[in-house]
């Protein structure tokens, strides 16, 4: 439930029957959460914008088939996760770097690096964003995504495991390592 008094699932049902206003409510409610999840995973605004549009287009297109068997946020972040993975894989193929693994943080960072931002701009952005966000960039991709899914989507370990197609224990360990790493990085930054 939200300030409008209607749950995400209710709004989705309304939009599935043709109520455009319900979709706008949903979009504004979850816009920044999805945006932060995407941009902090891919590290590139343009790519994040592109993914952002793809994700919400998919939500609009599949609304008629949406069944509230799971939370809307879980369904929404599942779409975002899949779009992000597809984008990364497509970029890899285009660059003929298929031998590189999804887990390779450095490669992902290279592929999704914002070309408009140089080292100085990146440094300024880090200072503006804060120490924790700078530390977040240094986390392994799986740990960072698991952490972002939890803090942005308010998802449970089970939901994150389902979205990332991982086991419950693996997901739980990723979350634990992510937070430990963040604390260490914050201590170093301090």
């Amino acid at each position, binding site marked *: 439930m939200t300030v409008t008094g209607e749950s995400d699932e209710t709004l989705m049902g309304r*939009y*599935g*029957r*043709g*109520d*455009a206003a319900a*979709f*706008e409510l949903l*979009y504004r409610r979850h*816009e*920044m959460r999805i*945006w*932060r999840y995407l*941009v902090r995973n891919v590290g590139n*605004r343009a790519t*994040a*914008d592109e993914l*952002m*549009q793809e994700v*919400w*287009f998919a939500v*609009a*297109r599949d*609304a*008629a088939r949406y069944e509230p068997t799971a939370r809307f946020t879980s369904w929404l972040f599942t779409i975002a996760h899949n779009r992000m993975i597809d984008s990364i894989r497509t970029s890899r193929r285009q660059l003929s770097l298929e031998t590189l693994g999804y887990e390779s943080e450095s490669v992902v960072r290279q592929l999704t690096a914002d070309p408009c931002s140089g080292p100085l701009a990146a440094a300024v952005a880090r200072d*503006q*964003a*804060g*120490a*924790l*966000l700078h530390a*977040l960039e240094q986390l392994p991709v799986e740990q960072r995504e698991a952490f972002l899914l*939890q*803090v942005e989507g308010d998802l449970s370990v089970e939901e994150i495991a389902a979205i990332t197609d991982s086991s419950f224990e693996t997901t739980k*360990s990723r979350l*634990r*390592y992510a*937070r*430990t790493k*963040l*604390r260490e990085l*914050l201590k170093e930054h301090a």
Partner: protein
Amino acid sequence: MNEIPPNQDQADEVDNRYRRESALDPSRPSESVRRAVLEHATQLAAERSAKNGPAQIGAARPAANPRWWRPTAFGTLAAAALAGLLIIPRLLAPDAPLVGALPTAPVRPNAASTAASRAEIREQPQDATADVRPSSPPPPEESALQPDERALKPRVSSRNEGTVADSAAEIDAKNAPAKVQSMTNARSTAAGGGSETDARRAQTRGATGISASPPQSTAPTAQSAGSPRQSVAPAASSAAPTAPPARLADSAAEVRRAAEIGAVPELQTLLGQQGDIDARDESGRTALMLATLSGQARAVDLLLAHGADPNAADAQGVTPLQAAIAGDRPAIAAALRRAGAR
């Protein structure tokens, strides 16, 4: 996995710091993305509304109902219209007059009365479609005639014996085609009923002995006891519960009959006698109504001159003026209006 898992307080500390710093992050999705997403979603919503909306968003049951009641409503209206087509002619048209079957009865021309008859015909405003029946051969054998024809034929023949009666018969013959043309099937059906009624009347008269004395109001040419005038004269009202005395009833019926056939001299004679000029037949029709229905303008004038009620409606509520208008008889309608008909 050598690390000690962070406790809940540590997790909350990291999460809270993340949220604080995220709130300060100016990063936002571009406005073009937001606009594109919302426009796309609105377009899809419109397509869904156009495709499934009316059936899904309310009014599902009301939308199905018109399919149900429309055929019923149209069927009811069609039945009402059909009933109206069948009933209205019955309301507007009188029972078929006795002369309705006259075209089958040949009229024997009488050389002595031809001039007088033609003069009377010229005076009588008739429908333009009326056509004088040409000279015809002698009537066939009575045994070959239908009962209705047997009842009617002698009546015409007897009138041919005298000048006045000849005139009336000739006018009858002249009017007959127009009447037949303007009458509906319902009237034709009623004509058969009327002839049968005449036959019953004749039987009634014979049984009651009325036929022994010819009615005083009859024309001098109608002498024999078996004449059709005598068989027609006694009204069927003799069988009605509130029937007037037989002689008065006979007189009223004679007035109506003379008015209907346009026998003006005879009608004038009858009107000079005591009696109710507005006496009605079984259908509630006065002599004025019958004359109107038959297009007998002179009879109408005569009846009005003798004080006939121009607004005396029949049992169906049809007034003479309405009947004149419905029968396209403007001269009669004008006369009725002048007499105060509404």
